[in-house]
């Protein structure tokens, strides 16, 4: 050519010839970013050991992924962030008191059995982090069950909150906090309080919302999880209907259905429906599950209507496990795993109507 440009290396391929910038790793790292505030709060709330649990979970997930890919001779993809997301979620849904081999095993099982055995990212049926969580729950129940939740540290925020709440009754602020979680007690039907007012035994709904309560490392602060979740909704990564339907249904079910769980007696004042409903949403894994796990791209339905059905199923199974089942206080993880199993069926029956066709 007259301009002297080299035109011998023209690339030829089919359209489209441009791509949106966002790739898989961008999505994954934004999810990591969205979880970070809740993770940092967990460390602040529970102490440095909680940080160690999370770091071990993340590193174990990444190492397991890299080792597997090395052994299989495929490209090592840990920089795409998907193993980091799995590890981070594993760490955040474990109690801060677990021995460090627990996050290691959970992440390893989650990544290897939960994901890589199925063919890696995109091919797995179940949420890898929850596979890991379910495994250690069964393998190490003594470390992962709710009865050993730690007592809150007497941090300034919690003290203030509790001081406010207990103003007048003279009880020392941070000593009231429980050994067993409110969810655990609800499940065994012992919500009735000795002093006659059930609600007084527990942190306020406000404290639950802020997260100054016992629980798993990253699941206590509903506020920060909500901020991260809203960010993902804004980015278009998750469908707002999933957490809305999940948490809304759970609230309604808890608030209005299970009245039979509350023992009645002259000296007992049952908690209000509001209190009961809010506890189901905020005291436990429902918020992190609804925003970050029931929205997992790979393991949940692909259409909006399918996702709503999925969320509804998660909420109902969670409610059944928590409120109707006996002895097992937390149901979020198993509800999501069960609904993961139903995802292909939901997808099949929620396929959109193709342009110009009549719905069969």
């Amino acid at each position, binding site marked *: 050519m007259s301009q002297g440009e080299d035109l011998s290396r023209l690339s030829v391929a089919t359209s489209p010839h441009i791509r949106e910038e966002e790739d898989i790793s961008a999505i994954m790292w934004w999810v990591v970013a969205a979880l970070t505030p809740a993770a940092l709060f967990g460390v602040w709330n529970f102490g440095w050991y909680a940080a160690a649990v999370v770091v071990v979970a993340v590193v174990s997930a990444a190492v397991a992924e890299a080792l597997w890919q090395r052994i299989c001779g495929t490209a090592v993809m840990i920089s795409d962030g998907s193993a980091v997301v799995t590890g981070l979620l594993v760490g955040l849904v474990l109690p801060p008191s677990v021995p460090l081999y627990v996050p290691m095993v959970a992440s390893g099982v989650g990544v290897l059995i939960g994901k890589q055995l199925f063919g890696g990212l995109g091919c797995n049926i179940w949420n890898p982090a929850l596979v890991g969580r379910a495994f250690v729950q069964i393998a190490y129940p003594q470390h992962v069950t709710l009865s050993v939740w730690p007592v809150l540290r007497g941090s300034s925020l919690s003290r203030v909150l509790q001081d406010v709440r207990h103003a007048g009754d003279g009880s020392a602020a941070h000593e009231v906090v429980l050994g067993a979680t409110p969810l655990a007690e609800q499940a065994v039907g012992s919500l009735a309080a000795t002093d006659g007012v059930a609600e007084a035994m527990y942190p306020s709904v406000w404290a639950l919302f802020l997260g100054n309560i016992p629980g798993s490392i990253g699941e206590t602060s509903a506020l920060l999880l909500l901020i991260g979740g809203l960010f993902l909704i804004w980015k278009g990564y998750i469908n707002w209907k999933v957490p809305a339907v999940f948490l809304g249904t759970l609230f309604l079910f808890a608030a209005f259905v299970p009245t039979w769980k509350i023992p009645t007696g002259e000296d007992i004042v049952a908690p209000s429906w509001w209190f009961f409903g809010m506890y189901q949403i905020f005291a436990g894994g429902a918020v992190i599950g609804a925003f970050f796990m029931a929205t997992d791209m790979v393991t949940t339905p692909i259409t909006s209507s399918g996702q709503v059905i999925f969320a509804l199923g998660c909420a109902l199974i969670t409610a059944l496990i928590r409120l109707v089942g006996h002895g097992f206080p937390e149901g979020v993880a198993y509800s999501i795993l069960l609904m993961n199993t139903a995802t292909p069926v939901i997808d099949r029956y929620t396929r959109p109507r193709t342009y*110009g066709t009549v719905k069969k």
Partner: protein
Amino acid sequence: MRLTFSGGVHPREAKDATKALPIEAFEAPQVLVVPLLQHIGAPARAAVKAGDKVAKGETIGEPGGFISAAVHAPVSGTVSAVEPRLGPGGRKIMAVVIENDGEDRWADGTNVKRDTSSLDADTIRNIASDAGLVGMGGAAFPTHVKLSPPDNKPIELLLVNGAECEPFLTADHRLMLEEPERIAFGAQLAARAVSAARIIFALEDNKPDAAETLEKAASKIPSATVVTLPTRYPQGAEKQLIEAVTGRQVPSGGLPMDVGVLVQNVGTCAALQDACAFNVPLIERITTVTGPSAGRPANLRVRIGTLYEALFERVGFAGAPRRIVMGGPMMGMAQGSVEVPVTKGTSGIVLLDSVPGDVWRACIRCGKCVRACPVSIVPSQISVFLERGYVDEANEIDMLDCIECGCCTYVCPARRPIVNWIKAGKAELAERRAREREGAK
């Protein structure tokens, strides 16, 4: 009410480089290569041979069937060869090579004014056929065929498509701005040919100036209105445009006439007026030569048969282009050579300085393609089937309804070549069906 279709994407428009540049005439080059197949359908049959003298506007290719289009000499001069030459599809196709004598001498009877007021539907169709008109938005479907709906499919509405939703392209935009009368006049003739009672001019809201000029031109036509649509690709795809403007969906496997609509590109309307009012066949078009690697991007009025290299000498480069695309970057065809001629469907030539990678990963089911798909199929699932060669399974979930707009592939974060697989899947299915028909005989 917001007029739009479902799905779609909004790539960077990239039209700023050329949208304010007036159309410039590009002088016909010394040698022109005019393919006999520039349209969908059967190739035209050569009506000239090497050594023949031809005049501008003279027929050099006769339609090779009903779904075919005539081809005309874009300049006066001498036929130096009728031989296979590289076409924009990447294959060699029969072409008439003309040595330009520089005189631009019109053929007898062409370029003369004709009174259009008495033209009836049949005559307009015949003129469109004789003038070699094809859809100029890019698909290049013969216009006279679209103007010939069967009696049981009455056309109620003519939709004049000025959406120009592809990034980079501004040829239609400039035409609407500078020559709206040609478009309006041609639209009236097209409406007359199909007895359409209404005309709607439709364009995207990123061209408010063009909406104004069209509005002015349309105000003289009692049955015509102008609608402005949201800027969203593929707004200009026939089925999506119909859905956006009328709310109707063309039945799967059907044509716009099934819902009483005829869609014509603005350029085609302008060409129809040239053919009817001046007996000027389709021998030139406006094309946008642009892109990050284009030195001086321009909207050029170019003779059909002009080789890209001639245009590049005028436009120049800004660094070596990595890819040369005929048409827009979403649906256009990559060219492997600069010795390819401008054809009736060359809405633009886009010089890209970077190309997408060719490494893809497993589908992570993010659902972006499902939300982007303007025909509401599930590209992710279809791609998972086709990746493994399951063409029948893909067909069962409406692979054939894909309009190949490329939205799914554009948004895919796993970089999956979804639309590429679908094109291959459709081809395999068609081939298999052809074989089955053979076998049944």
